[in-house]
């Protein structure tokens, strides 16, 4: 690396860290205006897995990049409703999955279904954690992944509060796999809405602008009093997400943690990262100073000793001379 290139890099790191710090103290990013998202209504979902099949179809029949293409699954796989449970999770062969819960709120017997996929955060943890900028928050709302730079450190999987990104552990050249909200397919005109939304027969999934979806969600909550809990999951969680949920049972009982807080993920690290340039600038001066001081003190002590010795010798000589 050329020295100038390196200095530029160091400068960029400093600037980013400082900007991050500024952001932490006066947070102002409101997310992309007019970005799209999806609203999921747990009270409408019947657990038919059509969304899963729609996702697999569009992403396996259209060869895009290796990290945006899924292996084709037999339709019979999606017809199996008996094996649905509350522990299964997405892996590198699927972007979405419907879990079946039997929440305490309904006596522990009646099933409630929840579709799981990437939440497409307004300020994604994965993107801020990635050290090669493999993740992009698109102005359209989707969080996309570019495998061509991915090293495979899997810090995105650590950072994501919902542990969304999945990894191809079984491949020798592995990539991360995660829902891209059909971003490449909508761009290419293959579909107008994400395939899962298009496949849902119950309108449990609604596609639209995020602002409109929030409005619609609260309309639904208000219009049928007592049905929904007054909480739109994803409106504020981790600074807000583009995929949101409403439900008649507590979210914690359908696998959606309610302890995430409202702080966007990048803010959790930007403050500490902002101190890095401070250390890089202050430490050398401080350490250099300490070194100078110790050198100086040692030299002074040495001189003092020599002087004392010389004086003592002189005194002795004078005595002997007498």
């Amino acid at each position, binding site marked *: 690396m050329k020295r100038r290139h390196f200095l530029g890099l160091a400068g960029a790191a400093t600037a980013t860290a400082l900007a991050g710090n500024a952001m932490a103290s006066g947070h102002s990013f409101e997310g992309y205006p007019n970005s799209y998202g999806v609203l999921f209504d747990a009270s409408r979902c019947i657990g038919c897995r059509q969304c899963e099949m729609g996702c697999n179809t569009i992403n396996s029949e259209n060869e895009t990049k290796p990290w945006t293409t899924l292996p084709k699954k037999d339709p019979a796989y999606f017809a199996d409703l008996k094996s649905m449970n509350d522990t299964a999770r997405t892996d590198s062969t699927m972007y979405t999955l419907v879990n079946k819960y039997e929440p305490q709120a309904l006596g522990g017997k009646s099933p409630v279904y929840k579709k799981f996929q990437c939440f497409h955060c307004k300020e994604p943890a994965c993107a801020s954690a990635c*050290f090669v900028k493999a993740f992009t928050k698109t102005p359209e709302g989707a969080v996309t992944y570019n495998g061509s730079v991915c090293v495979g450190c899997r810090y995105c999987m650590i950072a994501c509060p919902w542990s969304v990104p999945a990894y191809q552990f079984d491949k020798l050249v592995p990539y991360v796999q995660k829902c891209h909200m059909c971003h490449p397919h909508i761009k290419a005109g293959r579909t107008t809405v994400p395939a899962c939304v298009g496949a849902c027969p119950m309108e449990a999934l609604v596609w639209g602008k995020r602002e409109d979806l929030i409005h619609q969600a609260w309309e639904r909550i208000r219009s049928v009093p007592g049905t929904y809990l007054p909480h739109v999951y994803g409106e504020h969680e981790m600074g807000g997400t583009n995929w949101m949920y409403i439900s008649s049972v507590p979210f914690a009982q359908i696998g959606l*943690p309610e302890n995430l807080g409202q702080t966007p993920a990048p803010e959790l690290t930007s403050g500490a990262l902002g101190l890095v340039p401070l250390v890089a600038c202050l430490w050398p001066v401080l350490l250099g100073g300490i070194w100078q001081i110790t050198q100086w003190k040692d030299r002074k002590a040495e001189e003092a000793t020599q002087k004392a010795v010389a004086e003592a010798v002189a005194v002795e000589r004078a005595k002997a001379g007498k």
Partner: protein
Amino acid sequence: MSQHDHGAQPVILPPAEAWGVIRSLLKPSTYLQFVKEHPILSLIFVAGVAVTVNRFLIGGLAGTTNLDNNNPWGIWISFDLLCGVALAAGGYTTTAAALIFNIKGFRTAVKPAILTAFLGYSFVVYALLYDVGQPWRLPYPVFWSPGTSSVLFEVGLCVMLYVTVLAIEWLPNFTDWVGLPKISHIIHKCTIALTIMGIVLSTMHQSSLGMLYLITPSKLHPLWYSPQLPLQFFVSSMVAGMSMVIFEGTISHHYLHGRMSAEYNRDHDGVLFMFAKAASIVLFGYFFMKWVPIAGENKWDYLFDGKFAVMWWVEMLGFVALPCLLYALGYRSRSTGTIKAASALAVLGIVVNRFNVSWFAFNIQLRPEQRYFPSAQEVIVSVFVVTLIILCFRFVSKYMAIFSDHPSYKDHH
């Protein structure tokens, strides 16, 4: 207090013979001889190579590890990276004491400390090659597509630069050995600049390793999660470094006594007592530092809540307070035995802390059956890496002037 003025000046081969030693490394007979002399080490070596082949050419990560989508980081991160970097902190603590603070009697401790740090960091990077999915892309974050908002970018950049600094700091041992004193001479002129760079880079990435977990408030147990994690990691790394110097010095003394000069042996106990006192003070501060977030964020209730509370108390009392006390007692009574015990406990304590943060108290949202436990092959790789470090250390200190001054520096100090 033991005195070590015995022992003759260790023999350093003249440069011409040094090249002969290097050439012998290319001969199979050297290795057959090694197998005959060290059957257990050879067995570890064979197992390590077998897992390596499986990891890169046959089974991939799925065929070698117990990692899964819920547990993307395992023992290769918890032990090889987090513990490896912390325990290699002896490099910056010793060079700071010897060269920046100019503490008398530390000069001879510098070369072993730099060698340990250099090998430690080199093998941290080596172990990372196993862990990341596409290791041939490891230079990408710095040279191709830098993600500057990432804590891991900061870690990667600092570790890369620090390995370079350590390689330069270590190089004179090699160039003296093979008879290229001019190179050594140039590097010696840069000693202070290199030392300061080393300390700055160590401060940054030791703390950044703790910073990695700031982004996971909902996954790491509240007793360990704190905005002060970076500070805690940095301060505890000083303890790790100093304890490792004492711990390792004891072992080296046992096995490499013949390589140690009279001056090294004379200084040895002084370094031990000085670091014991310093480690005791730092541990004392660290003990209270760990309480600050508990009080500041009002986490008192967690201290008496279930198994995580027990783990926290064990870490705090058994691996922070106890070594702190033992170091202090050992220093007061001038007991090298107590200090050595304290250093072993402190080293173990760092492992306990890093394991708690990255493994035992991490991913607490998972059900018990989803939790991670390393596979045999993962453990084999970690043992293999430690073995390689020890073998390299032994080789270098057997031939180069690590525990003594090179004959060509007779008049230098």
